[in-house]
C-alpha cells in the first residue's frame, strides 16, 4: 500500500511528453534516422565478407538496431521536466522531496519506473516495425525470447541503479554533468551500443567485465542474436542479478547519507 499510493508519480514523464508533441516528433525522427544509419553502416561493413568475429551480417545488424532501440528506454530529455536531482538541488526544491509522506527513494523509483515503461513502449513499437520491415531477425526460439526478456529486465534494473548512483553524486558535488557525459559514453561504449563488444581488444573486454555496463545491454542483446549460447545464459543472468543486488545495497546506503546531507545543508 505504502508503495502504491504514490503510483501517479510514475505518470509524470509520459504525461509531460504527451503535453509536448514536438518532443515526440523529434524522438520519432531521431530514432528513424539512427536506425537507418546503423543498419546501412553494418550492411556496408559486411559488403565484402560473410562473417566477422563469428557473426553473420544479419546478426550484426539485428544487434546494432536493437541496441539503438534499447538505448531509447531511458534517454529522455530529463532536464526539460526540471525534475532531476541535480535541478532540484540547484533550485532548492529538493526540500519538498523530504516534506512528503512518500520517501525520496520511493518517489525516485516510481518516477524512473514510469520513464522506463514509457521508453519501453517506444522501443517495442520500434521493434515491431523493424521486425515487420525485416530489418531485425526474430529470436531463434521461444526459449531465447524468454531468456532475452528476463535478461533485458535485469539489464534495465542495473541501468536504473547506475543512473541513480550518478544522481546521488549530486548531493555531494551539486553537479553531475561531467559524470553524466562520461557515463553516457561509457555506457554506450561498454554496453555495445556503438559497436558490439566482441570487436574490441581483449584488455578492453577484461576491463569492461569488472564494470556493470555489459550487464545493461550487451548481455541481453548477445543472448538475442545467439552470440551467447543458451547454455551460458544461466551464468550471465546470475551475474546480472548480482549486479542488481550489489548496486541496490550501495544506492540504499547513499540515500541514507544523502538524507543526512540535506538535513545538514538545508537544501
Amino acid at each position, binding site marked *: 500500500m505504502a508503495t502504491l499510493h504514490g503510483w501517479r508519480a510514475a505518470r*509524470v514523464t509520459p504525461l509531460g511528453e504527451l503535453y509536448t508533441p514536438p518532443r515526440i516528433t523529434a524522438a520519432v525522427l531521431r530514432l528513424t534516422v539512427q536506425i537507418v544509419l546503423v543498419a546501412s553502416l553494418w550492411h556496408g561493413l559486411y559488403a565484402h565478407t560473410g562473417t566477422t568475429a563469428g557473426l553473420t551480417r544479419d546478426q550484426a545488424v539485428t544487434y546494432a538496431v536493437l541496441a539503438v532501440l534499447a538505448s531509447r528506454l531511458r534517454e529522455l530529455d530529463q532536464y526539460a521536466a526540471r525534475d532531476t536531482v541535480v535541478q532540484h538541488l540547484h533550485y532548492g526544491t529538493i526540500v519538498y522531496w523530504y516534506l512528503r509522506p512518500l520517501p525520496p527513494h520511493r518517489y525516485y523509483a516510481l518516477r524512473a519506473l514510469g520513464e522506463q515503461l514509457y521508453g519501453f513502449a517506444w522501443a517495442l513499437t520500434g521493434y515491431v516495425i523493424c521486425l515487420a520491415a525485416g530489418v531485425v531477425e526474430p529470436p531463434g526460439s521461444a526459449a531465447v525470447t524468454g531468456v532475452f526478456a528476463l535478461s533485458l529486465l535485469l539489464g534495465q534494473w542495473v541501468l536504473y541503479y547506475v543512473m541513480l548512483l550518478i544522481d546521488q553524486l549530486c548531493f555531494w558535488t551539486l553537479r553531475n554533468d561531467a559524470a553524466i557525459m562520461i557515463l553516457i559514453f561509457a555506457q554506450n561504449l561498454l554496453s555495445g551500443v556503438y559497436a558490439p563488444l566482441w570487436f574490441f581488444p581483449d584488455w578492453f573486454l577484461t576491463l569492461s567485465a569488472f564494470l556493470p555496463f555489459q550487464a545493461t545491454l550487451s548481455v541481453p542483446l548477445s543472448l538475442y542474436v545467439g552470440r551467447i549460447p543458451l547454455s551460458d545464459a544461466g551464468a550471465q543472468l546470475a551475474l546480472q542479478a548480482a549486479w542488481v543486488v550489489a548496486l541496490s545495497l550501495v544506492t540504499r546506503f547513499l540515500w541514507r547519507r544523502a538524507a543526512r546531507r540535506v538535513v545538514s545543508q538545508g537544501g
Partner: protein
Amino acid sequence: MIGSIEVRGLSRTFHTTVRRPGFTGALRSLVNPERAVKHAVSDITFDVSQGELLALLGPNGAGKSTTIKMLTGILTPTSGEARVAGVVPYRERERNARNIGAVFGQRTQLWWDLPVRESFAILRDIYEVPRAEHAARLREFDDILELSTFWDTRVRHLSLGQRVRCDLAAALLHDPMVVFLDEPTIGMDVVVKEQVREFLRHQVEERGRTVLLTTHDMTEVERLAERVVLINHGRLVLDGTLDEIRRRFGSTWQVRATLADPHTPVGPLPGIVLVRRDGPQVVFGPDGPAAPTVHTALKLVIERYEVTGVAVDEADLEDVMRAAYVHANAEAV
C-alpha cells in the same frame, strides 16, 4: 497540543569553509581550509497555539528560514527541541509530513511540465486524500484564489503570482493542521496579495489551521498577524502583539487636538505627555515605556477634553520595525 507548535531552546550552528579572496587565497583554502562557525539560530523559545497565525519577523539573515526548516523536519537542530502537532519533526519526518504543509516562496513543488491540476492529483495520491474530499477542497480554494482560470495551464507557463497561489493550494490540499509559509507573497501584485491574505485568514479562522509565516511585507503583518516573534542574529528579540511592538519601538505617535475652549487647562494623562500647546491647538505624545497605543491615547484625550477636531500621526509599522531591527542590532553588538 493537537495543532500547536512548541519550540524550546532551539539552536542551529553551521560549519562552513571560509573562502579567501584571490587566486592564492583560493589555493590556500584548498590546502588549509579555514573553518568558520555560524550560529544561524541560537536558543529560541516560543509557542504557537492551534488556530493562531504567528508572523516570524527579522531582517535578512536573521535565521527565519533556518527555523522553519527545523520545524518542517528538513534540518536537525544542533540543540534544543521542537514539537509540531505533538511530533518531533526532524525525528519522525514522515509522520510530521502528514500534519504540515509548507511553501517556500520562490521554490515551487509543482511539476514543471504538467498542468497544475495534474500536480494536484499527484499530491492527492501521495497524501492519500479521498477523491471527493480533494474535489471539494479544490473548489473551496478556487473560490478565493481563483485558480480555475489557469489550473489547466502547465506550470512552466504560469506567472509568478499564479504559480505561488497554486503552490499555496498544493500545500494545503491534504488538510494539514499546521502550515509553514516562508515569504509566500514574494513578488505578488497588490490584488493577488490581498487574495492570499483573505485565503490565509479564512484558513485560520474557519478551518482552525495554525500558521507560521515569514515576510518582509509589514502591511501583510498588520492585516494578518496578531502576534509576532521578532528574531535577529538568530536570537529572539521579542515575542508579543503588534501593539506591544509599537509601544516598545514605535513611540513616535502624536495626537493633535483642537480644544473647544482654548482656555481649558491641559495636563499630562497616564503615559501621555503634552508636547506642545499653541492656543486651542494641543499636541500629545507618548511618555516612557508604559505609554499606551495611539488608539488608547486618542480615546483618553477625547474622553478627558472637549475637542472640535483631532488628528493622529502614527509611525507606520515599517518605521516601527526599522527601529526594532536597529535596536536589536545595537543590543547584539
